[in-house]
């Protein structure tokens, strides 16, 4: 297991995973619940992220998620993941703006599912 590195100034750590049932990307909030919107993700320091990751991996199966890992992001509301890959995971495919994970589309997708 790769060791986590300490976020720099203005940076934070988020926990992400994939939901087993529909493959949806999810983010872990402060209460340990997996949320669809990156804006609800708990923004953590290294000291907070390490035990949170361990806990999340233990409970992944019972919470119906898989592939739990830590993402580096710039602090903010919502936080902005540093890499392009994670940016696309957090906000949706850049070529289909209509599928963006904004808070509006979030409530729509929840309503339809």
């Amino acid at each position, binding site marked *: 297991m790769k060791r986590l590195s300490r976020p720099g100034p203005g940076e934070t750590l988020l926990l992400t995973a*994939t939901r*087993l*049932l*529909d*493959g*949806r*990307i999810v983010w872990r909030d402060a209460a340990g619940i997996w949320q669809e919107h990156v804006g609800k993700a708990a923004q953590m320091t290294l000291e907070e992220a390490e035990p949170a990751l361990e806990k999340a991996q233990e409970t992944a*199966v019972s919470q119906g998620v*898989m592939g739990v890992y830590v993402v580096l992001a710039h602090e903010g509301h919502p936080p902005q993941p*540093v*890499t*392009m*890959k*994670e940016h*696309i*995971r957090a906000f*949706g*495919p*850049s*070529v*289909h703006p209509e*599928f963006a994970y904004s808070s509006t589309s979030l409530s729509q997708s929840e309503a339809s599912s």
Partner: protein
Amino acid sequence: MTKSVGHYNYEPKDKAFLQERIAEFEEQVERRLKGTLSEEEFKPLRLMNGLYLQVHAYMLRVAIPYGVLDSRQLRKLAHIARRYDRGYGHFTTRQNIQFNWISLEDAPAILRDLAEADMHAIQTSGNCIRNVTSDEYAGAAKDELMDPRVHAEILRQWSTLHPEFTFLPRKFKIAISGSPEDRVAARFHDIGILARPGENGPLFRIFVGGGLGRTPVVGQELFDGVPEEELLATLEATLRVYNAFGRRDNLYRSRIKILVQTIGVDAFREAVKAELEKMDISHYRLTKEKVAAIRARFAAPTLDAPDGGTATLAEQMQRDSVFARWVKSNIHAHFDERYCIATVSLKSPGEIPGDVTDRQMDGLADLADRYAFGEIRITHLQNVVFGHVRKDQLYDVWQGLMALGLGAANIGLAGDIVSCPGLDYCSLANARSLPLAQKLGSRFGDMELQAEIGAMSINISGCINACGHHHAGHIGILGVDKRGKEFYQILIGGQAGEEAAIGAILGPALTEDETVEAISRMIDHYLSHRDIGESFLQTLHRLGKAPFKEVAYGSV
């Protein structure tokens, strides 16, 4: 029920088989959801049913054997797009279609819907023999030696749930063509087969160990003149050697091309021959009767058109220059003078290469029913082909396509870009490829400019796995990741076909916008330095890559 043209028509046992396969998958999904199958165990099983886990959701890749669909099947795909996805699908470089927004729970229901139209997603992924691809002009082209689709179907059936070859070291791709033009990139496949008629039935030339990906290799001839009755035995022996000796310790060294490279094609051939000597050949004989039984389930179009179509077409081209340009780039010669082969470009300027909406799929199905015997072919360059269109009806077809937004006149030209889904959708990708394809498509969008530039293939892959076949493009682009930022390497000089060659890297990777500018300058350089009638590749071969490198990096 009337038989569909151009592909094998299912019989009851084939239909029953699909139902049995779906029941099996449904149960596997249940075991996964219950937790009795781990993700590690479930993954290969779902992959062999075409179900990937991608960036935003599950992705389902539906098989289109040898690229041929009938209108009923295309309408079914439109239905899947509407009902279970977000109203579109993406045609791939293996003549399949992918749906990007699928839920695991829905997958068995989708497979049931597909089965209603004799379709499935079997072996579109996984370390097994993948969907067999073929020539998009099969059974129609003037230059064809024989229609390879009957043998493509024989290979499809032979490879479906093969008891011995379903857990191979790595994926295994087979293509078959019956044209001297090799329109299937036979030398870039694990096995590429070129079929031709012989005195006593078809003969096959078999290439082995080609492929792109991390280690691009041009395939080498394994055998020539393999008679029809030994085709399956020969493939069986080849796969047996690969299954026993292909590496399993390193994902990137496990394709058959590495085995062939390591021991040499001669030693590999000897190993296959040794296998053949031990085999009871009578058991694997592909007899004329068996071939005839498969052929009997294919329907051929009844070609019947009034004379004078050629004159009508010439007149319409005279009257409408936009149509004339489309005819010039998108039409290929049919063996029957009264007909032609029409390629529908899925590369309208600014659009995502290979994407089609549900409405477009329904529209294409309608056009196929009216003008093309209900037959639709998907090409490995992510376009659509109507194989048999009457020349006097071509203008109507074109107008129908224009109404669907599918009238781009750019087949084989700069706008006919091949691209993988890239980082926007693919979890393996390092960089996005679709936005770059859109920018380049817009840059060369002008149909007149494209016609002026002439033959040109631009291929984009978002990672080294090379699903966009970047090594085989005249201009290839490979997305790379540098500390979370996207950059693009440019390759030039690649091509598929008889003169297959692997593109060479031009220089350091550039940003997306720099890449667009660099390619523009390279194309400008070609336009100002070409001899009369010279293509981009010919100019490149004459001048060498140095001047192109110079202009590409000149003002970066």
